């Protein structure tokens, strides 16, 4: 009896030509959902299809629409893309140093640095949304991980919201900080960019930049943007205290800032 060969194209997939998987392998199918300011109906569906075609997608199909009232419609649809990505050529900025646990980090500080380290954090500029910095700094932490205030070998200072860059630099001098964490959550019109850039410039002018680890974080920040701004790292959504602390302590040792 001959064995029928199972159809498993993903087994020898070509990583240089990667497309989304919808119903079948390599079909390029994408789900989209959005609201458009037109009343629901056939015209709304056609408007959505035309819009998606203009984006370069093909075979657009509206599978659901919902009346939002006030002549607005929410649309869910599928469409296909012919675009593909060479996964083997992708290089992203990321933290290579291993992530350690709460206990490992404190132990590492004791052994490798031999003193408590000081980390200050704040939401700077006009930003009053402390949810990010609190998740990293607060005693109770977030998602099962203690915040930096709980770390016996870390002196953590959460300066809160709407902290001016000058205030941040003043605290860094006063407390002789080893690391600065800047959180930027609300970033309309990219206000976070000049604000983050100014902090680096102030630190350079005060002669502090090379003496500390400078980190930014927030939903619209990443390591690449951080690098571009002159920060050592930029942590995005989902970051927890050990991610940040592991990077800080290993970077301190690597740069000889003990």
């Amino acid at each position, binding site marked *: 009896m001959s064995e029928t060969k199972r159809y498993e194209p993903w087994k020898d997939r070509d990583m240089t030509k990667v497309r989304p998987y919808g119903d079948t392998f390599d079909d390029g199918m994408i789900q989209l959902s959005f609201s458009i300011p037109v009343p629901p109906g056939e015209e709304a569906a056609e408007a959505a299809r035309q819009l998606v075609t203009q984006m370069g997608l093909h075979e657009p199909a509206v599978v659901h629409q919902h009346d939002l009232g006030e002549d607005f419609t929410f649309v869910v649809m599928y469409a296909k893309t012919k675009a593909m990505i060479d996964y083997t050529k992708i290089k992203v*900025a990321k933290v290579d140093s291993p992530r350690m646990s709460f206990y490992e980090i404190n132990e590492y500080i004791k052994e490798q640095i031999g003193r408590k380290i000081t980390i200050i954090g704040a939401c700077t500029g006009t930003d009053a949304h402390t949810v990010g910095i609190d998740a990293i700094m607060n005693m109770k932490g977030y998602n099962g991980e203690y915040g930096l205030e709980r770390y016996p070998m870390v002196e953590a200072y959460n300066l809160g919201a709407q902290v001016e860059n000058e205030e941040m630099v003043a605290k860094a*001098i006063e407390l002789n900080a080893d690391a600065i964490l800047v959180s930027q959550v609300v970033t309309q019109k990219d206000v976070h*960019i000049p604000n983050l850039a100014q902090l680096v410039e102030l630190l350079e*002018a*005060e*002669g502090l*930049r090379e003496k500390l680890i400078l980190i930014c974080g927030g939903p619209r920040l990443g390591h690449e*943007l951080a*690098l*571009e701004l002159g920060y050592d790292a930029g942590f995005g959504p989902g970051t927890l205290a050990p991610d940040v602390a592991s990077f800080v302590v290993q970077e301190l040792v690597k740069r000889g800032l003990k």
Partner: protein
Amino acid sequence: MIYRAIQQANARRVAIVGIAKHAGKTTAMNSLISDATAAGRRLGIVSIGVDGERRDAIMGVPKPDVYVPIGALVASAGDVLNTGSAVLSIVESTGYSSTLGDVYLARVERPGTVLLAGVRYAAQVHAVLEKMERLGADLCLVDGAFDRMMAASPELTHGVVLATGAVVAPTVEDVARKSAFFVQRFALPVAEERVGHLLDLAVARGGMVVGCPVGESGWDPVVLERTSSFVANPLTDPMWPGADRARVLAVAGAVTDRLLAMVEGLPRGFVVVLSDTTHFFATQQAWRKFLRRGHQVLVRCPVRVFGLTVNPHSVAGYDLPRHQLAAAVQAAVGAELLVQDVQGEEA
């Protein structure tokens, strides 16, 4: 032509600083690279930030490529060293790491595009430039990031090429006005030698020094206890000699609106002296107010401006009239400054 100005000044290290992101720094640098290559210079190229070959990290718009000639030295991170079309060979490690891998010095074996990334702060730039010069580079270009001025510091480079453009404002008049203010910062008057010595002392002590006049033209330096205006008002410092004696405040660090406000109530003619314009953070309003009170802001080291490039295209999706823009910017910054439409020249 801006390159000629650099050559005439015998500058070996030049910074490229933009008045805003996407003002045309990379285009300006490419123009300098091409002129310098034609003149047979051995180039060293370093970027503070991320340059070339990739999409902008915020807007997702494509950024211009950086083209490098054969024999040039570049500094970049290991993960992206092979991203461009240029063929590079690693010469040595810089000893710095980044989130894109360890940073290397590499020589261009076959010309093409490169991605420059990984160098982040002044101390690293300084070390990289020294290595490049040791390896034979006789003209080093330092591309700044966003509107960061740090690359222009006289401790790093011998002068600067500024880049402005339509991205700064949607009208010709506003671009000209904002560019003029930016250029003004590079024209801060230079302190005379004896006042400059007060700043040298402040830098040596890493703090602030007050100058009190003695005799005809001498200065009695008083070193303040607090090292930075960020943590204390100089006027409340235990060593503050009093408003009647103090005539100069030399600041090793940054001069901000807050510092100007602290000393602006002193008798007319007070002088704040700082290292150079990269330490000057005052806003236009605070600076003007300070000057109106009869005070002065002086620098120890001037930053030489070789020229200003103008880019009529904005990434926001509009273009300003090319000739009108260049003319308006030239009129606003004054005739002595070389203004060049780099793209227009290439076209």
